[in-house]
């Protein structure tokens, strides 16, 4: 096999050359370049020479630890409490700023905290925005990948019937995919508008005015959810088409056989359709996961990562730091971390869904 590939297949290699060349030029080389940059202090704009700085960019990015804070006590040793009866804690900044007793926390900021056994456990990190981006990105992937894949499969099953005019439905479901994501994002900014957006109007109409309008993108509680919903809607048609192609490769004879055997609809799906879609499922899940990790355009157009970092993502941070804040090496470090995460998750998915 190997010899056949390398020796007597010159036309094949020639045909593959443009693809391989482009992948090498725009994906493989930039990745190694990014890894190299992340070990330097490269700036976007600077007359200063680039210096090798080792792993300090990663150190700044990934430093995280837990700070245990005792509640404040008065002179008698009784815990001070506010009016609501909550114990009072000293401010985190009294530990993390210019405090020689806690050099290991210097310059760190609070990410979140929990209370345990009369003390506050505060998770502090040097780069809180990065950790928030990581959390937001993972939350996005965790919701979008399964929901979008399942919805797409549902739509594919619906439009896989032999009905008159079914192509019209296929076209309608596919339409959002064709529209540029930037345009879709702009439209949804108006739809989610807090004052008189379409969504608020519809909800208020459906509930006979009971629903009070809310600012979907302006509140940290709803902003990421709103972007998830819109992203799922936008790309679901693409994956529907992939599922559909998978469905159409399943031989009709299998369905005939199962109906002769008296299988129910669920049994047909479970024992004929689903096994037949195994390879399609692997493809769809991996593609959605990778696309979801690359979330950027929606954030850039709709929220700019706000409010309060509730929608910032890894790719958005990489662009913001690299171009906005001219910190190419910091952005490269984020890209490398993202690459490693996506790579390991893809390999894990591949392992779980491997043919047995």
């Amino acid at each position, binding site marked *: 096999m190997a010899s056949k590939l390398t020796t007597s297949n010159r036309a094949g290699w020639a045909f593959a050359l443009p693809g391989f060349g482009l992948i090498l030029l725009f994906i493989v080389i930039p990745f190694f370049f990014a890894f190299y940059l992340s070990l330097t*202090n490269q700036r976007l*704009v600077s007359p200063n020479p680039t210096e090798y700085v080792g792993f300090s960019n990663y150190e*700044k990015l990934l430093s995280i630890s837990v700070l245990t804070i005792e509640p404040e006590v008065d002179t008698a040793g009784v815990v001070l409490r506010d009016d609501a009866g909550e114990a009072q804690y000293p401010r*985190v900044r009294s530990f993390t700023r210019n405090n020689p007793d806690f050099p290991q926390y210097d*310059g760190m900021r609070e990410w979140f905290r929990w209370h345990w056994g009369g003390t506050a456990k505060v998770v502090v990190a040097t780069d809180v925005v990065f950790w928030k981006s990581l959390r937001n990105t993972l939350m996005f992937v965790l919701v979008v990948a399964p929901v979008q894949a399942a919805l797409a499969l549902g739509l594919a099953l619906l439009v896989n019937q032999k009905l008159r005019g079914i192509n019209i439905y296929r076209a309608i479901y596919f339409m959002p995919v064709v529209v540029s994501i930037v345009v879709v994002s702009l439209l949804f900014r108006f739809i989610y508008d807090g004052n008189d957006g379409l969504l608020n109007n519809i909800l208020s109409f459906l509930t006979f005015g009971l629903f009070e309008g809310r600012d979907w993108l302006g509140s940290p509680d709803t902003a990421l959810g709103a972007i998830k919903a819109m992203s799922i809607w936008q790309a679901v048609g693409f994956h529907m088409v992939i599922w559909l192609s998978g469905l159409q490769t399943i031989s009709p004879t299998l369905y005939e056989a199962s109906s002769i055997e008296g299988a129910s609809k669920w049994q047909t799906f479970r024992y004929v359709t689903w096994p037949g879609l195994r390879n399609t499922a692997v493809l769809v899940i991996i593609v959605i996961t990778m696309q979801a990790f690359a979330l950027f355009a929606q954030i850039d157009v709709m929220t700019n990562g706000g409010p309060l970092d509730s929608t910032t993502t890894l790719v958005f941070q990489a662009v913001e730091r690299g171009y906005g804040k*001219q*910190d190419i090496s910091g952005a490269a470090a984020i890209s490398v971390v993202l690459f490693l995460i996506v790579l390991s998750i893809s390999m894990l998915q591949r392992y779980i869904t491997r043919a047995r």
Partner: protein
Amino acid sequence: MKLGTTLGAALVASVSWASMAAAQTELSLWYHGAGNEAESTALQLIIDDFNASQSDYTVVVESFPQESYNDSVVAAALAGNLPDILDVDGPVMPNWAWAGYLQPLDINEGVIENFLDGPKGYWGGELYSIGFWDAAIAMMSRQSTLDALGLRTPTIDSPWTGDEFMAALDAAKASGDYDFALDLGMPWTGEWYPYAFSPFLQSFGGDIVDRSSYATAEGALNGDAAMAFGNWWQSLFADGYAPGTSQDPADRDTGFIDGKYAFSWNGNWAALGALEAHDDVLFLPAPDFGNGSYIGAASWQFGVAATSENAEGASAFIEFALQDNYLANFSNVTGLIPATSTAAAMTDNYAEGGALEVFFGLSEAQALVRPVTPGYVVFAKVFEKALADIANGADVADTLDAAADEINADIEANSGYGH
């Protein structure tokens, strides 16, 4: 074999191009105002006159949308494709000069003798850029509003104090006549935040960075004065005086005119529209929160790229463009403040008794340039995020600490930015 020939032919076809012979040296000019018809016409007028006035050079303009202009220039600089002449936002100029994108201007000092300070872009003691105009911000309101609320009319010599200003907001809020007392323009993300809001911080006694050394933001951006500023800033939104970051951009544009807001913190480019709608519009000076009244200075300016092989021609064009009649024409179509008083006398709005004459006084009395350092482009981003976060309810001290740390880390990463 056949395949190889085909590929080769395709390659040759794709890289061959037709070359054109040029009789005159072409000077490329990049401008940030794509989509602005009036500005483009005013600029084209200068270019046409310049091209007709001599036979050595032809200036050709290429316009970019403002949102992506800076990115385009940086990308072009990295690729070695800068034009001969480019326009640059005043506070960004030190960054480009420091990075070696720009070369000092070679124009006659006498030409800019009478220019306002704002349009003159100095870095390291050398003139790198020069603007046709400056911009100024004022607290827009209406005489009828002040009368109805029983407020004193502040003047440049005696602006409102911080307490008076908050009392004015309270009165406007209590009257119930307005959606919000104050419109700050929160949907205008980007340079608007440091341009419009850092003067408030300076009025409190803080700053984005310590200007005496430009080596640290510690104490300037998170000292007591800055904390007081941050708490005041947060209260504007928490107590319902001003709409926050999710303000509808359309309301920003027309809300004041429509009577939704009692006061609007806006630039002179919006002044003509307001005057057209109401004839009793006032342009009030910035309030004084204890350390003086300030507004931002410096707008877009023109410079010559370091890579330009025709620097002489580029400088000649810029010098040609600095004539009073062009400055006046630019001001007439844009409403911006002309760079010289002699040009101002030729304009419709800034001549004596003109509708916008007050902005000339504001610019003279209160204008303070943003920190003159190559790091400003980064500091501005940090400052914008800090203000947006505080407006959205983030802890004031933690946010300002984080911003100061980020600025310090950036200064360190850039070896002090050459100060």
